[in-house]
């Protein structure tokens, strides 16, 4: 089937996960164990099972999978509504980030049914049964569904995401034509949810040195900004076998962006600029 936009959930899924042992190659502290099941309330109407990753740093023990039976008639239509219902009525220790509930803050990014997306914009009706909810892939977990984003934000700071200019600032605005401004489209809308970066296999294997699609998308945002005057220096800082060139155009990033952005295309533009300046 042809996927036209990232929010299109495929009707048929051949494989939900690569057939491999669940704890293959996993270090001892990350091994996932079986948790408990929380049954639905007695007079529940439509019920759906949610398997959710749990981890409590205050207790001894490894991460585990808890199964919650959710009363769909008692909660809203989105996955975030189900999580809030669970926290309110079943287990108040379930911990997750959330804020705007409308897909603009990026807090509730998590791995839902195998793909990274925002919990507040994913319909429960699109999920398999049982639905599987994990935190963003390949992140250190602080608690339950909350990843430690320190390293990816440090990588973002590394690209110096601010205007770097040598010309003294003008009296009023720095002028920019509509065409030049349009080059920032599909870049400025990024909410830094890191769905793309945590879905990139190259970042899984080399995330300590590879910057990842989110950061590289923002790097391109500053490279194509006509008001920025440090293009050469930015390209020098990016031209590295690991920082940029671990990107092998896998394109999981474009597939999973919940805002419909295209990090793969932006990274290709950076590579094109690096080629153009030496030709």
């Amino acid at each position: 089937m042809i996927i036209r936009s990232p929010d299109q959930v495929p009707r048929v899924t051949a494989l939900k996960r690569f057939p491999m042992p669940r704890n293959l190659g996993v270090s001892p502290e990350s091994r996932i164990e079986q948790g408990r099941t929380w049954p639905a309330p007695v007079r529940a109407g439509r019920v759906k099972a949610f398997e959710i990753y749990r981890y409590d740093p205050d207790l001894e023990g490894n991460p585990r999978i808890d199964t919650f039976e959710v009363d769909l008639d008692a909660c809203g239509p989105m996955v975030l509504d189900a999580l809030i219902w669970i926290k309110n009525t079943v287990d108040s220790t379930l911990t997750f980030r959330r804020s705007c509930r409308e897909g603009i803050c990026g807090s509730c990014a998590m791995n839902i049914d195998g793909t990274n997306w925002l919990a507040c914009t994913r319909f429960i009706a699109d999920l398999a049964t049982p639905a599987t909810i994990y935190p963003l892939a390949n992140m250190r977990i602080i608690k339950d569904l909350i990843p430690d984003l320190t390293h990816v934000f440090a990588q973002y700071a590394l690209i110096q995401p601010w205007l770097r200019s040598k010309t003294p600032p003008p009296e009023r605005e720095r002028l920019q034509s509509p065409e030049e401004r349009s080059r920032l489209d599909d870049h400025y809308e990024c909410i830094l949810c890191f769905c793309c970066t945590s879905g990139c296999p190259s970042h899984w294997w080399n995330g300590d040195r590879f910057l990842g699609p989110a950061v590289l998308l923002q790097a391109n945002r500053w490279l194509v900004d006509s008001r920025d005057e440090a293009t050469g220096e930015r390209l020098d800082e990016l031209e590295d076998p690991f920082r940029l060139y671990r990107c092998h155009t896998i394109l999981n990033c474009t597939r999973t962006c919940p805002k419909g952005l295209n990090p793969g295309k932006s990274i290709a533009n950076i590579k094109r600029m690096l080629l153009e300046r030496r030709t």
Partner: protein
Amino acid sequence: MTNSTPKRLRPLSPNIQIYRPQLTSVLSIANRISGIVLSLYAILLVVWLVAAAAGPHAYSTAQVIIRSWAGQILLFGCTFSFFLHLCGSIRHLIWDAGYGFELRTIYASGWTVVLVSSALTLLSWIISMVLAG
């Protein structure tokens, strides 16, 4: 603040163990695996060329091995890897030129690679068998 107990390392959330295989990632790893397989077949190519240069006796030994059912299976694997890597690489070259990044196009080109490489593999084997008689 005394730190008598060492800070516990936070667990890493699962990645490949739970992430859904999608056309994007599956075709990418298939291109890489076919490339690695082809580099192993390149060794066999050199061995075969050396056998051809060594003389008719060495060459016919090589041909006997290739004509055995194990050799034919290896040759089929070689053909399929070759066409898969060829079509996948052309798709990569088109991306490197800057075209074909819309999600719809990514999926269309992806399925095209799967279909064309399978078709070319079958076609090449049928043509070879017809030509050989």
